[in-house]
């Protein structure tokens, strides 16, 4: 059942033969295909869907035209949720892309969790690669009220591949950037005045739909009364048919005259006429099923059952057939005559009659519908009807059952809409539901204080029930506040209490633990916890979790100073984030930006900038917080390149993003620290000093990791002010801490600062001692920028060091880099030193390189190694990057020069 009702969303509504040919409108629609968007906007009952369905069928039938592919999506009220909208849009568009493979399909599902824009970006990418001429029709778009979806559709239309055209059918103009499209001539519109029938069309319509051959003036009279409104005409035709009597012609004319003379609401007038003439079983059926948005015989039978006496489904199907045949109120949704829906306008009228005549039936009917949907695995419709029935207990029970699944699919908006419709006291009575509410508020980005208040009330009322569910959200809250001790305790508690099947909640708890271990320097445990998260991601097929956790592992290795191992893991994450059709998932940005930071440290600044920019492009508006990190990474690269103005501009952009993202203050903090550091690098000591005096007040409440970060900037401030003793005092505990944690990457930075502090206080011996330690730690993994970014004083110290034969080869290389930094013409990339590669090729890359040298094409290589073409391309581009070349010819030449391949 679930599938059959879902399928109807993606089918073009079944066609009656078009009653009135409307060649002008069909032509206008076809003309619109040169633009990006067609908007069909008019109130209910003007025949919008019928027109568009007819038009697309003519297009698809034209065999002499290059085949248009057609994607249709009929929206329902429940689809006003970004995650669900994305899911259905993806499903609808898949028929346009027959070559989409299982990986893509799988990723499309995964991407639901990453947010609408990310999913749309991926989808646009896929369409760009795979779709031929395609028309996407979205019907009943007025049911969408979520601003996020409107933004998403704007984004989609703006970035649409040339071959794809969108048609929106709506009862009202949607809040999209229509005027911009209009100004560019990319919007085509069909509006109420286009759809209104002329008198001739109305006459034709009445003849064809009801076999009524009316006198021309009678037809015109009717049409003028309904103002060309198709639904009104259709109902009028039914009412006229229902007029019995011997002198038919006279009766008709009389009816039309009195109808035209009346100023009563058209629908009231006509529906009564029509309903009066119906047999009792039909009247009974209409009244009892009016609460349904969609009808199918078994469901209707459940609603019609009288005092427990079952109703024969075949009889119900017979009624549905009669209604359809008589063109009475219902529209078939599929070719199997399984699902129908009421025409929206008539449904409203029937419901109003039900409310007026039998209000006591309403809760009973909604309740029956809710049970039927629950038994047929349509939980969200079951919830909606339970809420309409006013059965709070049942609604709570149903929401509770589906909550984790909804969370996993990011259908937070729907979940919140349900919960907001339930009385808070009822939610509080079910601790797991109350925990879900808190989780949904948190994931939706509501203020932390509100979430906290809600959780505290829940804990107070819950006792020991549902502790696991409550703990995990409390743990997340603690992480946002960087209260690591509490986060750890709660995550541990959650993992102890949550059942194994709660995969989603358990993966959240695992990530919390890994995060805390990282901050506390318990690296083995952190690596283990991230490893577990990678496994959960792989086991559940969620690349988002797997790739994200790999990147976290790599980030840890960077802290520990293991740049090459970190690089290998980032590459692994990158490889995992490319689907077989060669499209990169947005989550790859995390790996790209991480790699960029490593290349920056290696002083390969052009490559660092390329990777970071590529990562930022993928982020789009992934989340504001993530963009902040990416922008600051790029600013750091620019700073290393000596482009301070560009760095400053990026910091400004990062600040704007940080201000917009309100869930945590962490991003604002990072921007402030970076800004102060950038001022100091340019000698703006006063500005940095005013930042520092603003900070000291809030310092006591700052979590330890942020204190350390702030201290790094304060140390530089002391150095700039000529207060090396204060700098050294701050440095001492930090050095001890990183020695204990074996965070060598950070230790190198601290030792460099220590050396500078001693140097400033004219104590060359301890300066050299600190520098020697730093150089020894840095040489093996090739840390360079940490020295180079310090400028002139560092150059002087290095000259002293080389005189004393301290780590001589590495020191000499650093001094060489200093010399290049000073030469303005050093923009060209330094060639890779012969005989060695900074980044070794993997075995597979060596294999691919050898086959390239043997003259095989990429597809021949794919055949030979039994891997996909896109994987070969991926390997090849890694080879080019590592060899620092642009194409295969250069790659072979460079590899020969380095003695890497046999020729």
């Amino acid at each position, binding site marked *: 059942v679930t599938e059959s009702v879902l399928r109807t969303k993606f089918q073009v509504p079944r066609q009656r033969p078009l009653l009135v040919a409307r060649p002008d409108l069909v032509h206008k629609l076809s003309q619109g295909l040169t633009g990006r968007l067609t908007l069909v906007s008019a*109130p*209910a009952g003007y025949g919008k869907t019928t027109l568009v369905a007819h038009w697309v069928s003519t297009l698809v039938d034209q065999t002499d035209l290059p085949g248009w592919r057609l994607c249709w999506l009929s929206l329902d009220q429940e689809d006003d949720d970004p995650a669900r909208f994305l899911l259905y849009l993806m499903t609808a568009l898949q028929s346009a892309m027959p070559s989409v493979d299982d990986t893509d399909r799988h990723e499309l599902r995964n991407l639901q969790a990453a947010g609408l824009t990310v999913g749309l970006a991926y989808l646009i990418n896929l369409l760009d690669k795979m779709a031929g001429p395609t028309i996407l029709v979205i019907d009943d778009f007025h049911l969408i009220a979520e601003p996020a979806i409107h933004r998403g559709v704007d984004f989609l239309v703006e970035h649409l591949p040339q071959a794809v055209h969108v048609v929106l059918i709506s009862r009202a103009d949607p809040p999209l950037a229509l005027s911009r499209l209009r100004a560019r001539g990319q919007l085509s519109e069909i509006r109420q005045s286009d759809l209104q029938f002329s008198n001739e069309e109305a006459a034709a319509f009445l003849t064809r739909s009801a076999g009524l051959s009316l006198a021309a003036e009678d037809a015109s009279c009717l049409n003028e009364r309904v103002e060309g*409104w198709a639904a009104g005409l259709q109902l009028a035709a039914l009412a006229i048919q229902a007029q019995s009597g011997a002198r038919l012609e006279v009766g008709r004319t009389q009816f039309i005259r009195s109808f035209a003379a009346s100023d009563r609401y*058209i629908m*009231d007038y006509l529906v009564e006429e029509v309903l009066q003439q119906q047999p009792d079983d039909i009247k009974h059926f209409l009244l009892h099923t009016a609460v349904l948005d969609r009808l199918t015989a078994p469901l209707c039978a459940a609603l019609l059952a009288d005092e427990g006496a079952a109703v024969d489904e075949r009889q119900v199907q017979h009624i549905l057939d009669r209604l359809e045949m008589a063109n009475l109120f219902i529209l078939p949704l599929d070719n199997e005559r399984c699902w129908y829906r009421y025409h929206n*306008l008539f449904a*409203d009228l029937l419901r109003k009659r039900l409310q007026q005549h039998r209000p006591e039936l309403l809760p009973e009917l909604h309740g029956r519908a809710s049970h039927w949907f629950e038994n047929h695995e349509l939980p969200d419709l079951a919830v909606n009807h339970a809420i309409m029935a006013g059965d709070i207990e049942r609604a709570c029970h149903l929401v509770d059952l589906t909550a984790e699944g909804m969370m996993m699919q990011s259908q937070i908006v729907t979940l919140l809409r349900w919960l907001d419709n339930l009385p808070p006291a009822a939610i509080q009575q079910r601790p797991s539901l109350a925990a879900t509410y808190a989780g949904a508020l948190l994931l939706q980005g509501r203020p932390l204080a509100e979430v906290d208040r809600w959780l505290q009330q829940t804990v107070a009322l819950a006792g020991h029930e549902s502790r696991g569910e409550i703990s995990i959200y409390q743990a997340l809250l603690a992480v946002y506040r960087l209260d690591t001790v509490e986060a750890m305790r709660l995550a541990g508690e959650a993992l102890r209490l949550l059942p194994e099947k709660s995969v989603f909640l358990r993966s959240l708890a695992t990530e919390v633990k890994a995060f805390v271990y990282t901050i506390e320097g318990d690296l083995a445990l952190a690596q283990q916890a991230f490893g577990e998260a990678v496994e959960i991601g792989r086991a559940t097929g969620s690349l988002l979790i797997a790739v994200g956790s790999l990147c976290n592992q790599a980030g840890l290795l960077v802290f520990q100073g293991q740049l090459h191992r970190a690089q290998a893991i980032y590459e692994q994450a990158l490889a995992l984030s490319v689907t077989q059709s060669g499209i990169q998932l947005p989550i790859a940005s995390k790996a790209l930006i991480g790699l960029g930071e490593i290349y920056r440290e290696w002083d390969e600044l052009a490559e660092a900038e390329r990777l970071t920019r590529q990562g930022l492009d993928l982020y789009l508006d992934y989340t504001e917080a993530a963009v902040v990190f990416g922008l600051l990474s790029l600013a750091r690269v620019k700073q290393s390149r000596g482009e301070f103005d560009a760095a400053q501009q990026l910091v400004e952009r990062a600040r704007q993003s940080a201000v917009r993202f309100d869930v945590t203050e962490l991003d604002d903090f990072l921007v402030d620290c970076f800004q102060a550091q950038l001022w100091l690098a340019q000698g703006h000591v006063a500005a940095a000093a005013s930042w520092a005096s603003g900070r000291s007040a809030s310092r006591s409440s700052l979590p330890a990791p942020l204190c350390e970060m702030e201290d790094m900037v304060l140390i530089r401030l002391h150095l700039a002010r000529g207060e090396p003793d204060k700098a050294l005092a701050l440095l001492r505990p930090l050095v001890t801490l990183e020695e204990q944690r074996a965070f060598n990457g950070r230790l190198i930075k601290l030792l460099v600062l220590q050396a500078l502090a001693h140097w400033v206080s004219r104590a060359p011996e301890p300066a050299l001692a600190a520098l020697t330690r730093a150089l020894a730690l840095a040489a093996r993994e090739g840390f360079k920028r940490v020295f180079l970014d310090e400028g002139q004083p560092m150059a002087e110290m290095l000259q002293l060091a080389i005189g004393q034969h301290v780590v001589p080869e590495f020191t000499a290389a650093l001094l060489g880099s200093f010399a290049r930094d000073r030469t303005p013409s050093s923009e060209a990339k330094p060639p890779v030193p012969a005989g060695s590669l900074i980044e070794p090729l993997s075995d597979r890359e060596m294999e691919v390189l050898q086959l390239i040298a043997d003259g095989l094409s990429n597809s021949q290589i794919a055949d030979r190694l039994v891997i996909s073409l896109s994987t070969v391309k991926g390997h090849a581009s890694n080879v080019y990057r590592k060899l620092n070349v642009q194409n295969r010819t250069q790659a072979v030449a460079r590899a020969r020069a380095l003695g890497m391949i046999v020729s």
Partner: protein
Amino acid sequence: MATAIPPDVYQIEIQGHLDESWSDWFNGLTIGAGTTGTTTLTGPVADQAALQGILIRIWSLNLVLLSVNRVSLTRGTTSDR
């Protein structure tokens, strides 16, 4: 939390004649005949969201909306739109 301020009273005018049976459908607003073939819906409306809900119902029945006025000034702010 509850405030003593009574909700605003609104009067909505639509084209055509609607009978009293629609009252429940429009949140209990009083339905009356307006001037020359129009209908007025009058009564207390809880807040702007409720007003929006009523307007949507008018629109989904394809009724022609002529005017919306706030007729009580309990909040003491400026009048209608």
